[in-house]
């Protein structure tokens, strides 16, 4: 597991000390050995990865610079379009679906020298917190294979934690990067809404979705973020806000850093989670940071607000899957019309959780309920946003746990509502559209296994440089 981070890999390859082909082959060998037990990857691109790595080596031999991610092996969540292989969203609905184009993030990573090694398993259509709704089987946590890696980006998180890649991509609609990063003991960044192009990301909740990286270090998260961020003509919701060079921002001076801790984040956590947070606060305080007690009472309404807005948007986005232009089509029955064919194709193609969310979303948008649920949730959304604005007037970043527990066992949470509660600390980041990151914060040994515990930092919209600098500081303090 002691493998250099992506920044170090790229530096070694650019300097000629490491050949990209050798590095890619070692990564593919590691995948072949470990993936059958983890099910992190759905597809692995052996030939294409070696070919691409050879091209990187050829560029270096010719004196050209392949870019800041030279030879870095990248795993891509299967809801992000790649012309290599399939893009299935871990759903029977998209069995065999091949994208005619690459997502902008994939184009940008490859343009910076990255080698795409495979596509990773996930909760179907990114709906879940455990990667158990994946149509291609459950994903297992590298720290304890009886436990989930979290979700929905569980395959990308497990692949990164087991070092079956140098960095991986996830998507985060309500915590789907940060919670699996916490469960797998790695770094997971959810940038500001609109910061990274979503062209090529299969839409779930369009006002919430954001792509981000999983990495082993904060500097890698910053590197991947820097390559991917910025406006894209293909995505009209990508923000035309210039991307700062985070290294131009001075390292966080702990004596000038105000860390907000909401009282609402301190209840209902497992003892190891509380302990990890207290340790981090102690280290920050000792380094001279100011810890500010803040109040985010709307935390308690986050899950309810999210489970109106996200399913509403999902029910609309997933209406495109009707079995006609692409995706699963049911076998046509004699005398059956188009409407029945749509309905049977959808019910055969979508799994239970996806259908449950489509039902919920359709219900809250239906005539007679729209005002009571959807319109009200949108008003509360503004209150959640305003509450963060008020909090960030008193502090630079907000610190808390990423999730109330460490990874739970596969099959251990069967009630949908209980599963949704996993995201209590992460959904409001998406609802408000701000930035968040999960860092490895401690270890929960209460089960007899060493299970990672994650800590989350949140920062205002477009304050990624501040977030990354504060994360770097916390990472350093925690590892000392």
């Amino acid at each position, binding site marked *: 597991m002691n493998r250099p981070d992506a920044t170090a890999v790229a530096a070694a390859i650019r300097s000629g000390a490491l050949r990209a082909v050798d590095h890619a082959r070692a990564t593919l060998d590691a995948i072949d050995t470990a993936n059958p037990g983890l099910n992190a990857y759905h597809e692995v691109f052996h030939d294409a990865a070696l070919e691409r790595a050879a091209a990187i080596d050829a560029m270096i031999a010719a004196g050209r610079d392949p870019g800041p991610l030279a030879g870095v092996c990248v795993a891509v969540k299967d809801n992000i379009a790649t012309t290599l292989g399939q893009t299935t969203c871990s759903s029977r609905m998209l069995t065999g679906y091949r994208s005619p184009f690459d997502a902008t993030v994939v184009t940008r990573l490859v343009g910076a020298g990255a080698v795409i090694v495979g596509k990773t398993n996930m909760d179907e259509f990114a709906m879940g917190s455990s990667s158990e709704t994946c149509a291609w089987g459950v994903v297992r946590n590298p720290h304890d294979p009886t436990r989930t890696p979290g979700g929905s980006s569980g395959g990308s998180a497990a692949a990164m934690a087991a070092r079956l890649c140098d960095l991986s991509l996830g998507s985060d609609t309500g915590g789907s990067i940060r919670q699996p990063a916490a469960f797998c003991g790695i770094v997971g960044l959810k940038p500001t809404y609109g910061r990274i192009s979503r062209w090529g990301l299969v839409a779930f909740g369009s006002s919430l979705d954001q792509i981000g990286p999983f990495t082993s270090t904060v500097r890698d998260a910053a590197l991947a973020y820097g390559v991917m961020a910025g406006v894209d003509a293909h995505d009209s919701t990508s923000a035309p806000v210039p991307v700062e060079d985070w290294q131009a921002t001075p390292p966080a001076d702990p004596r000038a850093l105000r860390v907000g801790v909401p009282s609402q984040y301190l209840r209902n956590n497992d003892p190891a989670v509380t302990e990890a947070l207290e340790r981090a606060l102690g280290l920050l305080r000792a380094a001279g940071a100011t810890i500010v007690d803040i109040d985010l009472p709307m935390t308690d309404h986050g899950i309810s607000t999210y489970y109106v807005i996200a399913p509403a948007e999902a029910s609309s986005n997933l209406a495109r899957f009707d079995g006609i232009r692409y995706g699963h089509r049911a076998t046509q029955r004699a005398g059956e019309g188009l409407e029945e064919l749509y309905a049977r194709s959808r019910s055969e193609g979508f799994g239970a959780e996806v259908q449950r969310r489509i039902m919920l979303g359709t219900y809250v948008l239906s005539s007679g309920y729209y005002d009571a649920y959807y319109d009200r949730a949108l008003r509360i959304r503004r209150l959640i*946003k305003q509450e963060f604005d008020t909090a960030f007037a008193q502090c630079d970043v907000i610190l808390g746990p990423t999730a109330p527990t460490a990874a739970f066992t596969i099959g251990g949470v069967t009630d949908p509502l209980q599963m949704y509660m996993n995201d209590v600390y992460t959904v409001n980041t998406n609802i408000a559209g701000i930035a968040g990151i999960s860092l490895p914060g401690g270890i929960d040994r209460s089960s007899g296994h060493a299970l990672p515990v994650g800590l989350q930092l949140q920062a205002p919209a477009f304050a990624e440089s501040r977030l990354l600098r504060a994360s770097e500081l916390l990472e350093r303090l925690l590892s000392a």
Partner: protein
Amino acid sequence: MAESPTSLSSKDVAHVARLARLHLDDATIESYRTQLASVLTHIARLGNVDTAGVDPMAHPLDTVNRLDDDEPGPVLTLDQVLMNAPAREGDFIAVPKVLGGDSA
């Protein structure tokens, strides 16, 4: 404020399934009825929040309708567009008969 259990009948669920173009059998409708009622009961707490004078927020960004220049750019070829169609006839996607007459 106490939460009142959200009442949701099988008929309501069947109606929503029809709106969502989902084909559900009776047992599935019953299981979704229980699960959706439990989620809706939780969500009903939003009714306790005072939202007087608060405008709805549909989106985190202020930008609306950002338009591109009206210039032709690269587009997918017909084969690329049709490459994932479950049933293709020439340059068309084949579908069941939509209009009346003999059913296929």
